[in-house]
């Protein structure tokens, strides 16, 4: 009797603001199809209020499980309480939430942005240990001001960076996670700091790719004159690494679909699930790029 009706999941996505996000969506849709799950997908166009609206409509439609990637961490108490009252379990993906009552969601499945920032910094610290004579003057391209990944990736990086006094951030500006802005800001940095810059840390690959163009146009060699470190691990980053223009990308895995479906089924079947499901993620320096490149799905 239980299997007669397929499981219905209502999923509220943030939007389609980046390739990473698109890959994330595609993975979830594919996995749902494979698992025979009826997926109700709603796109929030990057706005929290739209996500809340979508969740409310999922509750009205009485879906079996609600999953969503929160736009921001805070502000979910009320609507999650409504879901709880309606006995619909909630799974978070990609980003966590801050709520007064942890029981409002069953599990959180996703990456840890702070950890990503730390990993990027750790790679640099290692690099610095191997090159005692090199200067490490870092320019940072932040994500959208106020967004969770920007805040966390900055914080994680800063935390580890402190352990190595030769690492200094000399400039930090937002590049809105886009190639065009990343390039524009990098151009300005290159004019005002010139050869002083030896490291670029970008909060995502797109900004790094844009900045790499700016570095080349300034007649410098990205990857050599200026080390380039970024986060996400999208296809474009691997291409850049193959050409030796990017030194390392810290993976932030968007392929959460299969794990989400599994968790949803387990929740519905009443099996216990851990409060935090960690996603498998790696750090890919340029040396392994060639080997890894064929495996990339996004």
């Amino acid at each position, binding site marked *: 009797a239980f299997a007669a009706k397929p499981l219905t999941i209502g999923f509220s996505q943030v*939007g*389609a*603001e*980046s*390739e990473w*996000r*698109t890959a994330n*969506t595609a993975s979830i849709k594919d996995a749902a199809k494979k698992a025979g799950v009826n997926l109700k997908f709603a796109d929030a166009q990057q706005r929290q209020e739209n996500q809340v609206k979508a969740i409310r409509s999922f509750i009205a439609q009485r879906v079996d499980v609600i999953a969503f990637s929160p736009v921001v961490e805070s502000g979910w108490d009320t609507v999650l309480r409504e879901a709880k009252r309606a006995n619909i379990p909630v799974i978070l993906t990609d980003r966590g939430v801050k709520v007064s009552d942890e029981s409002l969601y069953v599990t959180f499945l996703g990456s840890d942005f702070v950890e990503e920032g730390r990993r990027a910094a750790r790679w640099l610290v290692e690099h610095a240990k191997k090159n005692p004579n090199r200067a490490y003057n870092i320019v940072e391209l*932040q994500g959208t*001001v106020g967004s969770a990944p920007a805040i966390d990736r900055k914080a994680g990086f800063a935390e580890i960076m402190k352990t190595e006094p030769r690492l200094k951030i000399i*400039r*930090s*500006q*937002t590049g*809105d*996670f*886009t*190639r*065009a802005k990343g*390039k*524009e*800001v990098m*151009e*300005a*940095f290159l*004019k*005002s700091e010139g050869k002083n810059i030896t490291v670029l840390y970008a909060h995502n690959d*797109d900004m790094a*790719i*844009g900045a790499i*163009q700016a570095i080349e*146009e*300034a*007649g410098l060699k990205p990857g050599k004159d200026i080390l380039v470190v970024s986060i996400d691990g999208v296809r*474009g980053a691997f*291409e850049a690494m193959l050409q030796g223009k990017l030194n390392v990308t810290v993976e932030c895995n968007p392929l959460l679909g299969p794990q989400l479906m599994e968790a949803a089924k387990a929740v519905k079947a009443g099996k216990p699930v851990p409060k935090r499901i960690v996603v498998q993620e790696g750090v890919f320096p340029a040396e392994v790029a060639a080997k890894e490149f064929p495996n990339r799905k996004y």
Partner: protein
Amino acid sequence: MIVKEQPPVVAATQAARPAVPVKDSLLSRALAHHLFRPLAALAALLLIDFLLIPGFFRLEIKDGHLYGSLVDIVNRAAPLMLAAIGMTLVIATRGIDISVGAVVALSGTVASMLIGGTMVIQDGVPVYVAETPMLLAMAAALGAALLCGLWNGALVAGLGLQPIVATLILMVAGRGLAQLLTDGQIVTVYYQPFFFLGSGYLFGLPFALFVVVAVFGVTALLLRHTALGLFIQAVGINPVAARLAGIRTAALIVFVYVFAATCAGMAGLMISSNVKSADANNAGLMLELDAILAVTLGGTSLAGGKFSLAGSIIGALIIQTLTYTIYSLGVPPEVNMVVKSVVVFLVCVSQSDQFKGLWKRRAA
């Protein structure tokens, strides 16, 4: 260039009438010129840069072309200037076009997808191959932009929708269409010749600058040597009277939207050529607001009527200089917006007649 020009002919006829005494000094005439205040604002910004940012005005030759902050500003402002030129005409007819950003995304996407391109390494020499001939792809992109303009124009002139709502439809849907084409991916272009448009150099200057100058020149010529400028202003100031005077108001309105969209299309090509890719979700985001801002900073009223193309160009330069200044000064990103808004406030207020009055009263 303002359309109601005071061309040399007038000066000549006036000079021919000896009875008319020349009262105004050159200086006071310059002060009264409509471009004076936008130019003064730009100069003030540059002065701040000069004082605070060492080497801001330094220009060097690198790889056979000019290299420096000023070059960057002009290069970066190019798409904005194009969009502002188109927007100026739309605003002059009392309209507004908020779909500019979406058109930028759409045209960039169409071009990038069609060109695509791959780099093939043959005997250690990279060879670039485009999927569709580049010119054809660019024509297709501009064609798509043109269609967008027709659509906007038809909604405004044909159906009589209010411009802001009519173009809101495309603003929302246009980006969606672009993303539909790319499946939400960023389309990267690997075809070297395409990059020339956005980051190439001609005679040591950015090629984008030549494109802007060409578009500006053609537009200015069109306005000067046809009655277009007069008609646009007439329609903008009093559409009823313009119709009764025999002007084809509907056709004119469709034209300005098509023109604006085509300019936006060119801006889109330029942006995607510059970053060697098309990002349907982010390309040209908020460009419409910047374009409108540029037009108003240049002294054109949003209520329609009198307009100044040159003013809009200066407006665009003001905006880009400001952005660049913020980056170069090392303003923390959290404060960007506050700085930007304060400067915009100051520039606007300093341009108003009332401010001048205040100043005079103080001095007296």
